[in-house]
């Protein structure tokens, strides 16, 4: 089976005034369908930049990024947007819910943009998702009436409502307490099982990494030495000692 994400020697330069920042300096990763990839690394290592390339929000300066078999550098703005809408679900670090819309509408939003389902189908799908994330009592609430964890679950529901092949999350547990963070991870596991989606999380939360099927470490815009396919022994040890 072909990889859903295939990155070949991708670089990304940003211009900040007169300074050129080399956010990524040649990264190559392949992610197979159904996998759970965790991107680790300290702040400023290029995690978010890598995520924007995978998420078709940006294109690489050099190298290639293929998502669902399409070279993002060769796509137009419209095609990229369309790819994001139909293939990718985003979970943002600070949730980014639309403040003026209620929970139901927030989750429904991507479906409305897709314009492919009838109102009834949309409603059914939104409600079933909200039930799974345990927000049935908050369907008509506005985001500012919800707790951080509840908002995160709304964000997850929104990311999954289109049944995307690829779910991206940027530090999904960074703003959450450890219990809620764990719930999120359980939810992911369950969804992975039922929807067979591919998950790519950027994180420096060891607990998140412990669930990943593959971990890549970034440092200074490059992959750190030694790519592991699963948590290392020492990391597992860290996790267990953290739990203890």
């Amino acid at each position, binding site marked *: 089976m072909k990889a859903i994400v295939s990155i070949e020697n991708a670089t990304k330069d940003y211009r900040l005034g007169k300074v050129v920042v080399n956010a990524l300096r040649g990264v190559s990763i392949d992610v197979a369908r159904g996998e759970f990839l965790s991107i680790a690394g300290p702040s400023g290592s290029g995690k978010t930049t890598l995520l924007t390339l995978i998420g078709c929000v940006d294109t690489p300066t050099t190298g290639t990024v293929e998502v669902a078999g399409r070279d993002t550098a060769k796509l137009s703005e419209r095609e990229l947007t369309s790819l994001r809408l139909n293939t990718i679900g985003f979970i943002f670090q*600070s949730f980014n819910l*639309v403040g*003026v819309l209620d929970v139901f*509408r927030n989750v429904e939003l991507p479906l409305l*943009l897709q314009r*492919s389902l009838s109102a009834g189908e949309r409603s059914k799908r939104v409600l079933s998702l909200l039930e799974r994330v345990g927000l049935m009592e908050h369907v008509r609430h506005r985001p500012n009436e919800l707790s951080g964890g509840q908002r995160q679950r709304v964000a997850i529901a*929104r990311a999954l409502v289109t049944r995307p092949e690829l779910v991206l999350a940027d530090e999904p547990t960074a703003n959450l307490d450890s219990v809620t963070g764990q719930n999120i991870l359980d939810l992911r596991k369950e969804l992975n099982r039922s929807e067979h989606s591919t998950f790519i999380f950027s994180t420096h939360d060891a607990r998140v990494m412990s669930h990943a099927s593959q971990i890549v470490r970034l440092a200074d815009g490059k992959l750190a030495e030694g790519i592991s396919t699963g948590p290392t022994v020492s990391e597992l040890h860290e996790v267990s000692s953290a739990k203890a």
Partner: protein
Amino acid sequence: MAGFLDTFGVVAQIALRNLFASRWKTLIVGGIIGFGAFLVVLGTSLLDSVDRAMSRSIIGSIAGNIQVYSSESKDDLDVMGGFSFDANQIEPLQDFARVKRTLLSVPNVSKVVPMGINGALVLSGNTVDQALARLRETVNKQKAAPNDSALADAYASEKDHVRQIVSVLSGDVEKARKLHDEKAIAAEDISVMKRASAAEFWADFDADPFDHLEFLENRIAPLATDADMLFLRYVGTDPKAFAQSFDRLTIVDGQAIPEGKRGFLFSKYTYEEQAKLRTARAFDKIHDGLKVRGKKIKGDADLERIARECGNQAKELMLQLDAPKTRLFRDKLQAYLKSGESDVRKLLDQFLRLNDENFDSRHAFFYRELAPSLELYRVRIGDTLTIKAFTRSGYVQSANLKVYGTFAFKGLEKSPQAGAMNLMDLVSFRELYGFMTEDKQREISAMRAKSGAKEVKREDAEAELFGNAEASAPAPAAAAPDDLGTALSGLSRTGSARAASTAAYAADQLTSGVILNAAVLVHDDKKLPETIAAIEAAGKRDGLPLKAISWQKAAGLIGQFAVLMRVVLFTAVLIIFVVALVIINNALVMATLERVRELGTLRAIGAQRRFILSMLVLESMVVGLVFGALGTALGAALVLFLGHQGIPAANDVFMFFFSGPRLYPALSGQNLGIALGIVLIVSVISSFYPAFIAMRVSPREAMQSED
């Protein structure tokens, strides 16, 4: 389709929620837009109403729908303004019959009225002159019938009246001498006055009345300053055609100029304003101010001035009082004022000191008790008015015309603009303007033959008069070429002018002959431009130099008033909306910058740019529509209210613009549409730049961490 509606639904939902979320911004932007819409509705409705009212005023009073004059004229025709003598050089059209035939060949033309407009200064008779003239006439009659006792009584009374006038004038000169520097009054005037007031003068009067009368006429009468210059603007026309075409014309006093007769009709406004006794006019004006406009004398600058001036007008009444009237006035005023004062002048002075408390009673007393004994107007209906006007070539021509009455235009009774124009027959107008009728030319040539005057060209006039030594013989008649190139003598001129007052004229003189302009009335006033073009084309076809202009142009500045106001209004609206545009734009840009993360998120989860664009434009349109509709409704409500109540004309000028004492503005769907259209366009345009910024927001913005 369903998909589109659903998307629109969410766009609308986000847009509306956003508007509610940022209430202050929405209210400010909406307030400006609403105010703009309100102003547009109110302004355009008022202007349309004024336009309609003014067109009624102008078309209905003199201009007609279209004015036609010679295209060879140096100046533009201005039937309303042009208050100086040489303002409008209008070339004459030689044959009205031809002009009328050509005009009536244009399908939309219904009526044609011949016209000529000019102005003249007219000296109204002064009381002293009139009193002296009456006395002289009586003296003459007495010569013929020395034993008539009625004549003797009249003689005594008139002599008394003249003596009274002399004493009033002498009192004035004395007062002036005290008030001013002694030298300001000519010593001669004082000695003349002394002689005329002296008892011996009057004792000798009976012995040689003519000698004494001559002295009074030549030396005393000029010292009386109550003679008034009337400035009269008049239109010479076919009175019957005029009355038929301008159906707002009504005769107020007297009668219309009879068919085929020369004559003059005062506009009632001019007659009241210029010919009425100042005292009476002051009573009228204050009465109008108090009763019609609900003002008070005290505190109103205008009324205070009129009341003050009225207090100094006793003299003009005094000059009218002969001995019996003096006694009558003394008795009545003594009783009314409960005063023991025996000097009528002092009683009148006291009576004419008007204020808010005494006005009503004195106004009633004046008209009930005093006015019947007074000549209220300097020119009476039925009098003959001597009009001296400058002809086109600049010499003075005069005509004596009977004043048949006064007229007014319905609804415009108090409008100075409509009331400035008086009426005379076209034949007299032509004479005053320097055109000869055939009759008159015959008369002149006959006179010329008799007096031996010869035709002199303008260039040769000087040589004929002074340079040429051979020109001896009887003093050559002063040569002043008229417009037809005929020189005519001063003698013949006055001679013929005297005859004018009584002479009738043939009907064909009105239907043919020279005119300056013509008023054209049309069947369908919506087709004015086409009709104007058709008239000029018909003129070309028939070899007539016709220029046709709409009533707006013909009324000069006044006609352009509505256009001018429209320009002012739309400039104001434009400025308001440009300011609104800037403010709205800024508010929306700020709002957009506040929403960068939300917009980035929408883009990241798959919203296309046009979704963002339509969302922001929709926001602006909703604000524009809701507040625009609110402003429009408010404006419409005010217009409807004003349409019901009417806007009172604040002064006489507004009477003209309002075509009556009140303006009733009407609402038109067109104005509402214009207002809504403008606000919608403005709000959409003002959202373009912010929407552009919003469109450029990168989906990366959603990935930035919160700090």
